[in-house]
């Protein structure tokens, strides 16, 4: 949230170890979303209603009153989950260091009859509509994911709406629901309470069963307090994802200082717990991303916040570089282990694109079948990040274009299988399809943020994004390299590549 000049990030944190446990709300503040100062934990078990745990939730800024945090408390040894609230102890403290949980009205919401009290959590940011504050709480009944709606006139007494705002069969528990409006035109974000004909709504859920998230675009019918996804938006595992890699428990907020909606996401470690204990930390937040609706209306676009550019240091540029099959050219002069690279590729023809098999519905499997070393027609082409000098290790991020009967299919792949000589790692071949119309353009762009053990990639201007955690043994620090490559029969032109060494931010 942003309040009184500072951005605040709260995150689930274990002060006693590198695994999940002893969870508290850790708290960091920043003026620029890039450099952070860690404060003492804001919320930790201290009351009967959160004695057994302070789990996730959301902040809401109440006009004229200030911030309120709603969060899930575990209230007994039987895993009963309730929703609680906390407010700053001292609003004049710009850091909002200390938070209190008044006994009055706490917990504000408990699972009533018919509601699964052990799977009932993650209250959302509230929106104000029709004289009421409204929030969602994630839940499930057997295999049906549910978002219950609660209304309040005074932010103290809450009543469950007769119907959940939305549910979906077969998706399992809905964790960390996020519900917010996006403008149908432009890139500006909207306050969570905005409704009207000029907006669509987004409902995002994190799915416990598969550890990834999906979102739908749809319409919020305020008169009946129901959300209905567009028929082009799939509810569940076949749906759109913010990120096709390691990205979970995400949450967005509206930044009123710049009228943008910003998305935070969590990426855990892909190494072993033994590694985590040795290095003394585990888990990262992705770089904050601005979110807006794609002009086509069928998906969201994300892009790293512009403040990240303040870390750009030495720049190396390349243009009009032709790559034939087998070429890989080094981008020299930047700190390849800590870099930002933006590149636009072009190709003259799609005739030689390999055929697409309609049974290939799983992008990650397809990337696993057709990695960067498997030659293709148009592609694979892209970049080799965190590469060792002789390519014993590299994490390729690349496109591969296929021809289906009446269109082309574009796959973006971030393949960790060759990322490290170390075998004791989880090395997935993350991938997602990219919805671009190649009949009107023969270019594809890619941006990757490379930071030692994370490669965060944005395909086609933020349409398909993949975060991957990798742990090279050789391609470390000044032994890491960056290459552009093409392994397809059709020549690819690097129209323009800009890359920067990135300065280090002040972080926890």
């Amino acid at each position, binding site marked *: 949230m942003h309040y009184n000049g500072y951005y605040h990030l709260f995150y689930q944190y274990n002060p006693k*170890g590198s695994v999940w*446990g002893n969870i508290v709300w850790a708290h960091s503040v920043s003026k620029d979303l890039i450099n952070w100062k860690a404060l003492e934990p804001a919320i930790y078990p201290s009351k009967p209603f959160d004695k057994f745990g302070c789990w996730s939730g959301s902040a809401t800024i109440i006009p004229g009153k200030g911030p309120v945090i709603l969060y899930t408390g575990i209230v007994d*040894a039987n895993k009963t989950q309730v929703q609680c609230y906390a407010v700053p102890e001292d609003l004049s403290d710009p850091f909002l260091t200390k938070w209190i949980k008044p006994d009055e009205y706490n917990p504000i919401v408990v699972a009533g009859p018919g509601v699964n009290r*052990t799977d009932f959590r993650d209250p959302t940011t509230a929106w104000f509509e029709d004289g009421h504050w409204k929030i969602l709480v994630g839940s499930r009944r057997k295999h049906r994911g549910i978002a219950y709606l609660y209304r309040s006139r005074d932010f103290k007494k809450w009543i469950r709406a007769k119907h959940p705002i939305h549910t979906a069969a077969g998706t399992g528990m809905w964790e960390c629901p996020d519900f917010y409006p996006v403008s149908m035109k432009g890139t500006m974000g909207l306050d969570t309470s905005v409704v009207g004909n000029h907006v669509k709504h987004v409902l995002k859920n994190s799915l*416990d069963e598969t550890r990834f998230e999906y979102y739908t675009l749809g319409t919020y019918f305020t008169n009946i307090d129901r959300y209905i996804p567009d028929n082009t938006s799939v509810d569940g595992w076949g749906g759109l994802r913010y990120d096709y890699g390691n990205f979970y428990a995400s949450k967005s907020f509206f930044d009123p200082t710049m009228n943008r909606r910003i998305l935070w996401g969590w990426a855990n470690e892909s190494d*072993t*717990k033994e590694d985590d204990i040795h290095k003394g930390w585990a888990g990262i937040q992705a770089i904050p991303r601005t979110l807006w609706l794609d002009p086509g209306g069928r998906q969201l676009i994300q892009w790293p916040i512009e403040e990240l550019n303040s870390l750009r240091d030495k720049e190396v540029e390349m243009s009009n570089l032709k790559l034939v099959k087998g070429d890989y050219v080094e981008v020299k002069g930047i700190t390849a282990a800590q870099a930002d690279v933006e590149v636009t590729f072009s190709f003259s023809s799609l005739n030689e694109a390999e055929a697409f098999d309609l049974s290939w519905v799983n992008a990650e499997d397809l990337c696993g079948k057709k990695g960067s070393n498997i030659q293709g027609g148009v592609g694979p082409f892209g970049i080799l990040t965190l590469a060792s000098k002789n390519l014993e290790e590299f994490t390729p991020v690349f496109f591969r274009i296929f021809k289906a009967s009446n269109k082309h299919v574009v796959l973006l792949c971030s393949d960790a299988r060759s990322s490290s000589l170390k075998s004791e790692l989880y090395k997935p071949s993350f991938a997602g399809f990219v919805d671009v119309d190649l009949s009107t353009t023969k270019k594809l762009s890619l941006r990757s943020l490379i930071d030692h053990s994370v490669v965060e990639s944005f395909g086609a201007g933020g349409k398909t994004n993949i975060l991957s955690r990798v742990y090279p043994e050789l391609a470390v620090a000044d032994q890491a390299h960056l290459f552009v490559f093409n392994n397809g029969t059709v020549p690819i032109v690097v129209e323009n590549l800009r890359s920067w060494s990135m300065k280090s931010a002040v972080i926890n």
Partner: protein
Amino acid sequence: MTNLKTTTTLFFFLFLIVMTSLPSITLCDEKLIESTCRQTPNFNLCVQSLKSFPGSATADVRGLGLIMVKVMQSKANDAINKIRELQRSAPSPALTSCASKYNAIVVGDIPEANEAFSKGMPKFAENGANDAANEATFCENGFNGRSPLTQQNNAMRDVAAITAAIARQLL
């Protein structure tokens, strides 16, 4: 009178014969152990491990998960004791590496799985159990085929895999 006594005695013996040949009376709970174990990679080991702990007969699935974490602890202890013994007679880098891996199991994975089952966040129990299985596998791999810890590593890996499968059933 005699007839009644005989009938009663007969009846009693019949009753005894029938009851001792029937399976245990706690049908409900045993069905839970069995149905839970059927959804794990090793049914027999699962049933045997659970039944060796008191309280398994009346536990729910989460409770069975917590019992398996205790079994994991016991297997980890076995491995650690064996490692210590070997470190005295035949120390090696592979052994040191194994000590570090089992430390991670005991300090990280087991507490994580315990708290996750207790508090109701089964995905972290699955996570911890999977890591424990991996740590045991990586320890074994470190010996390049000539491991003195095969029995302990296999035991660790097998019970951890069962624990992860039980966590998955709670998701």
